[in-house]
């Protein structure tokens, strides 16, 4: 319900009736699928111009408010014999929460260039939910009315200083301005921006608009703010906006700056970088258009990101040899192309839970020889909570001869589930023990440079391939770590 319209959902047949609250005329009647279960409850929510309906056994149906067009159906997962029934949904930004039976499902929504994609990506594990009647998300909290199970209150995002996020706009910070709070003459139209995400402007109307959003940060952390904006109007005219950061707990403005566009070419978007320190764990960013004379002038806000330094929560030994599944050790040998008179031996030596021995001998000199060990991880290890730039694979290595190459290969599923082999090489031009740290970003995948978000990758196996030309020698790899932060000394 807003100031002008009331939306009433009814069933049998499923209909969403839009009523003008000024004269109580029916503005639209949208036919809704799936609402044919007698006596059952179904909820809906409207967000960013879309209607999300918890449509019983059919899962979630998504419609466009303006046209009533059906855009998408997101079915519920297989309930393992139980018929799941969606009866409530709450959406904010690009995340929705769907109540069905004893579970709350996470709905990820992606909108770009007019296309809409949405899928259920997971379910919350909260034990016995009883029967959920309603979910409601607002301002970082998800409230669940779960029948005889009472009420569950869940914080989304973690303001705890020990765990943070890299890019806030990826976590609980909606970069689409249509999802922000705004008042006054703020017009959101993606076509104005140089990105499809958002733009806001005063248009040719009186510019009094204010746009803002609540977000979490780590108190005391340095915040980097990147604003992409543009002006409309001759470059000698005043077109600007004010950006403020506010302590959500006290409502005090602790940071303010002016987004100036003077000297810029009308319609050309450019970046403004700012920085400040978060004064609390809950903040609010507010942007106010300062353009007083609107005749022929607009301030266009295209995008904003706010990032903070991420505290390293795991420093070492996220993965170690003993984490690997011993029974799945596989030794793969390779030799000369003719494969006739090359003898290759690979040995897992010493304490097999800690050490790799890679040893090859070659009866025909000047041939490429090597050994190849692969170990799979018992329970796949998720690379969580850190960015690509500070993940290192570390090895203590001892090579008894020079002129070799150690291939380090780890197999992982990236964020979209694609299975990839990530490869890097170590030039073994040393004798004796050394520590080697390989930044994950330096690895190359089978499809190009490292291009996945490691925070959403799952490490499946590690392979070490030692290759040399014509000289038998041994390489010992000990103490394999995955670490974050600075590489090992």
């Amino acid at each position: 319900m807003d100031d002008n319209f009331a939306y009433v959902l009814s069933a049998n047949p499923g209909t969403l009736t839009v009523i003008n609250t000024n004269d109580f005329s029916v503005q639209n009647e949208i036919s809704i699928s799936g609402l044919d279960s007698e006596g059952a409850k179904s909820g809906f929510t409207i967000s960013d111009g879309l209607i999300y309906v918890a449509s019983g056994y059919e899962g979630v149906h998504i419609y466009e408010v303006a046209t009533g067009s059906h855009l998408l159906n997101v079915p519920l997962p297989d309930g393992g014999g139980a018929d799941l029934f969606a009866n409530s949904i709450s959406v904010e930004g690009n995340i929705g929460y769907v109540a069905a039976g004893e579970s709350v499902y996470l709905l990820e929504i992606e909108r770009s260039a007019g296309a809409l994609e949405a899928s259920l990506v997971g379910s919350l594990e909260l034990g016995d939910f009883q029967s959920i009647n309603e979910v409601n998300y607002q301002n970082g909290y998800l409230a669940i009315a779960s029948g005889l199970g009472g009420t569950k209150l869940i914080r989304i995002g973690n303001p705890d200083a020990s765990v943070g996020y890299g890019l806030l706009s990826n976590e609980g910070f909606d970069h689409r301005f249509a999802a922000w709070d705004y008042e006054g003459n703020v017009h959101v139209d993606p076509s104005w921006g140089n990105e499809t995400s958002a733009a806001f402007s005063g248009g040719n109307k009186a510019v009094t608009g204010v746009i803002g959003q609540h977000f979490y940060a780590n108190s005391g952390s340095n915040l980097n703010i990147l604003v992409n904006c543009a002006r409309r109007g001759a470059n000698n005219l005043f077109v600007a906006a004010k950006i403020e950061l506010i302590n959500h707990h006290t409502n005090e403005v602790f940071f303010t700056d002016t987004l100036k566009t003077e000297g810029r070419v009308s319609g050309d978007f450019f970046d403004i970088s700012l920085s400040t320190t978060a004064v609390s764990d809950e903040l609010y960013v507010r942007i106010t258009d300062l353009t007083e004379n609107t005749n022929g002038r607009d301030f266009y806000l295209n995008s904003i990101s706010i990032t903070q330094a991420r505290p390293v929560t795991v420093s070492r030994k996220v993965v170690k040899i003993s984490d690997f599944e011993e029974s799945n050790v596989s030794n793969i040998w390779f030799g000369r192309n003719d494969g006739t008179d090359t003898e290759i031996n690979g040995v897992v030596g010493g304490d097999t839970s800690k050490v790799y021995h890679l040893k090859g001998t070659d009866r025909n000199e000047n041939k490429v020889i090597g050994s190849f060990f692969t170990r799979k991880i018992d329970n796949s290890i998720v690379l969580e909570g850190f960015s690509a730039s500070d993940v290192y694979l570390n090895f203590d290595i001892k090579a008894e001869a020079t002129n070799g190459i150690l291939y380090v290969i780890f197999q992982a599923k990236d964020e979209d589930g694609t299975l990839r082999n990530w490869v890097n090489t170590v030039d073994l031009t040393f004798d004796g023990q050394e520590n080697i740290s390989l930044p994950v970003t330096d690895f190359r995948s089978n499809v190009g440079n490292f291009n996945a978000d490691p925070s959403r990758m799952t490490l499946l196996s590690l392979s070490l391939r030692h290759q040399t030309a014509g000289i038998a020698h041994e390489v010992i790899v000990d103490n394999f770590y995955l670490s974050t932060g600075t590489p090992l000394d």
Partner: protein
Amino acid sequence: MKKLLPLFYLIALAYGCQDEINSDDLQVRPYIDGIEVISDASVLSDRFHERNENVSVRGLQSGRVETAYQLTLVSEIDPPKIRNEQTMATSVDIADGLIAVSYNYIGEDFRGGVDLISRNGETLSLVSQLAYDRSDISMVFLSDQSIYYAGGSPDSDSVAFADAIALTNTTPDLSQLTRRSVGGHLATCVAKSSNQLFIT
């Protein structure tokens, strides 16, 4: 920070009725039998449990825990017992600094209530409870320092009703209770726009 573009939320049953009512016409009833406001912290604390436990999200495709999501179960609230019978949570609403939960009872009898939970920063507290001896409460929402809820009661003129109670800080002020009875067996939803209430 007040959200200026709220989500719109209504719930409807398969069978229901719709009434549009000018809220100015609501009659103030200073006292309705069978309603109690409980704000004694020692009583309410028995139902309020702080948890602060991580909540995992299990991937539907992968079957494993998805770590991209940071969720924390902050607290749980047991449904209240009314006349020694357990009620069940039926709806929940969140506004600035306040969370409201409605309760009803499964069975022939009517009993229910509304909880009010305050949020101060990261601290949640169950601050007051409305206990209805003879009313089911189907749905609640918060607006303008008042709580509005829909329900049913044999004490009402026609069973189904919508109540509104102004809050003094976080405590319902029963002297400011207004009630509108509507046709039907049970009111399931109430929403407000300007000075109109919409009841299903």
